[in-house]
């Protein structure tokens, strides 16, 4: 029983893994072309950017907040970096490009963090506002034109593959960038589980006032969280530009729903205090597989957004219903406990 519970995971990661597995099996039976290395690799490739976004969203959601400006930050940071490099006519190399983008992203996140922490404002409204501000600022000050050419180092990365397998249905490529994403996942998981900073995020999500009283630096942590989200978003932004081999300022913004849905499906509680990296990655994969498989079975792409929306509502709904059922079950258990205690007392 205990082993079963561990398999289920504290945030139902086990259940999610089963659902994902079931979906893959079902899709493979329904459409044999689904179960190929090509599909698998392309789903992984399509999950690279969402996973990085989702890690950021996970961190905020654990603290009990929400950030909807991450896509705007990502494209701002990525596009501004590319635009700067192209206009200045020099290529600082990949580390340089990522460093510039992360600096821009963290600064934008700092704006979110300061506004939220200093004035204790609702996170959804603030980030909804800054999303517009960042996007508008990018159009006004950075530019709105489409770059079809990227700096050399980025263009080179675009075609780097980790695996290159020849299958019956053609060549299948696994993009090199899955490696840094995997490392990023491990890093975030380690931070969440093994650092006081990580634990303070869960504490704040559990009870903000209690966290303050316990001596956590709540405001400083909040600012760090939004800077971290900004930095992660910037990485995602650069990678998105690399993968699409062009810098389009109209990209990414509008796709926030997919990410938030994936994080919530992954077991992170929208009320804060719960969530894991494993669950989040599974959530992203689930959303990507569903989108992919819906396309394969011929569902028009317009319905994809509907499907993701339904998933989000389902995810939140299941959480709420489970919480309610747990509280009811607890009451019965407490009744039993007191009944047993009573019997012991009578017996002795």
């Amino acid at each position, binding site marked *: 029983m205990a082993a079963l519970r561990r398999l289920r995971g504290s945030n139902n990661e086990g259940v999610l893994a089963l659902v994902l597995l079931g979906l893959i099996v079902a899709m493979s039976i329904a459409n044999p072309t689904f179960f190929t290395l090509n599909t698998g690799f392309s789903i992984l490739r399509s999950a690279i950017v969402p996973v990085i976004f989702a890690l950021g969203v996970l961190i905020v959601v654990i603290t009990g907040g929400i950030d909807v400006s991450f896509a705007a930050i990502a494209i701002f940071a990525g596009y501004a970096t590319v635009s700067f490099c192209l206009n200045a006519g020099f290529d600082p190399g990949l580390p340089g490009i990522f460093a510039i983008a992360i600096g821009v992203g963290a600064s934008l996140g700092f704006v979110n963090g300061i506004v939220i922490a200093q004035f204790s404002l609702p996170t959804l409204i603030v980030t909804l506002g800054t999303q517009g501000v960042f996007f508008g600022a990018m159009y006004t000050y950075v530019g709105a034109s489409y770059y079809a050419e990227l700096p050399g180092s980025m263009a080179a990365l675009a075609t780097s593959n980790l695996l290159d397998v020849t299958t019956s249905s053609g060549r299948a490529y696994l993009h090199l960038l899955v490696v840094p994403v995997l490392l990023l996942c491990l890093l975030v998981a380690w931070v969440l*589980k*093994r*650092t*006081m*900073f*990580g*634990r*303070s995020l*869960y*504490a704040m*999500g*559990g*009870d903000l*006032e*209690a*966290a303050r*009283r*316990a*001596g*956590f630096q709540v405001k400083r942590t909040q600012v760090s969280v939004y800077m971290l989200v900004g930095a992660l978003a910037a990485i995602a932004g650069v990678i998105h530009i690399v993968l699409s081999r062009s810098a389009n300022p109209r990209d990414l913004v509008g796709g926030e729903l997919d990410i938030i849905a994936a994080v919530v499906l992954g077991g992170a*509680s929208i009320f*804060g*205090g*719960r969530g894991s990296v494993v669950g989040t990655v599974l959530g992203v994969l689930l959303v990507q597989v569903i989108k992919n498989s819906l396309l394969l079975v011929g569902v028009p792409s317009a319905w994809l957004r509907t499907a993701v929306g339904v998933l989000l509502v389902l995810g939140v709904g299941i959480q709420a219903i489970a919480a309610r059922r*747990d509280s009811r079950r*607890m*009451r*019965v258990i*407490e*009744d039993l406990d*007191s*009944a047993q205690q*009573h019997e012991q007392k009578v017996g002795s």
Partner: protein
Amino acid sequence: MTSMTTSQPPTPFVSARGISKSFGGVPALVNVSIDLIPGEVHCLAGENGCGKSTLIKIISGAERPDSGEIVIDGVSHAQINAHAAIQGGIQVIYQDFSLFPNLTVAENIVLTAEVASGRRLYSPGSVLPKAKAILQELELDLDLDREVGDLSVADKQLTAICRALVNDARAIIMDEPTTALTHTEVSRLFALVERLRARGVALLFVSHKLEEVLAVSQRLTIMRSGRQVVSGPTSEFDQRSISRHMTGREVDESRVVSDLDLTAPLALEVSKLSLAGAYRDVSFGLHRGEILGVTGLLGSGRTEIAESLFGVTPADEGEIRVGGKLVPIRTIQDAVTARIGYVPEDRLSQGLFLEKSIADNIVAASLESHRTRWGTLSRAGIATTIKQYFVGLKINAPNAQAPVRTLSGGNAQRVVLAKWLATAPTVLMLNGPTVGVDIGSKEEILELLRVEAAKGMSVIVISDDAPELVAACHRVLVIKQGRLTHTLEGDQITVDTIQERMSA
């Protein structure tokens, strides 16, 4: 006085001296001094709003005093911050415990100490032994791997106490620690307090329950309207003198019940009511004008019975008759139509719109009765109702437009009462009507119920506060493990019999 003392008076660990504090020109504390001595329980008693909480906040560094000093271990501070207070060994256990519901018991116990020590990394492996050690020391039995949100109130409190001790607390301040505990849990807590005392911890116990004050403390400070009324060894006080100092007047807690007309038809008749997992086979009748007590331990089913009568969780089986007529109560709407009112246990979250004005809260449940034939609301009628109850219930606020959030416990409870009285219910059920209410307001609330009952309303009081049941109830039903085990009447209703029947 100096020549009379035979032994050196014990050195206090923490002293607050001459503390004054005002908020926006209104004095909250005026020249208050208090000593916390190792191995001693100091009780701080006073009615709601007397300045107890402000004093605690100043000692724990959450608020800064306008004047006065805090002396910790002989070192004087004009003010301290929360971090310094914790470092100095002062721990506060707040009424809401300030625990993290989403973390395990072990993490809750250890996490604040880890923060205080300025660690950057966190190792789950080293946390467990630390938490285990403190449990063993206090001889407590808690499941360290359980999430705190799943614990009972009493276990949450134990977790909070363990957490304080892991932080090497030398002074523990407990804010109203017994409010949510049952009788047995309170005695368990007091046993633990004795063990803490033996360890040389200085305890400050904030309470307004007189029995507890007398049972647990060695020293007593009573406050009223921000002033220190009296301080001294607890042995020099009795219940009567404490309540006199707290309220500034004589408070009558004795039993006052009217004669009932037993020939009148029953207002409410419940027969063989059952709800799986909560209660079984409950039958009783309620006379017109009767105040009926329903008591039992937490989880005995007492609350569930009331919630079924109000349609929150409808019963599985059984019949409910209101005024002789069979009424199926499946929803709250059914209960309201049958003129049954319910004041829930957690009035702050369930019974009030905290951000709304007193006036809005008073009419919230009775708007229907002010409907004109055009489907609009009669402003004049609403105003009359508001005035009637605002004045009639002596709600202590500058005016009826003040938000309910700003009111003290006793006044907030009066607003909830006003809300339901305005609906003119035949049967009014109150769950813990005086929980968190100070002794003066408590007496007044009970008197209000007596008056309404005399006018013909039937009242059910669900409570485990035996003195309150004795003071007001015609009969008391004892619920144990979901069954109605005893019906106490007349002379049987005493504090001792009620407590005995409840936990026996």
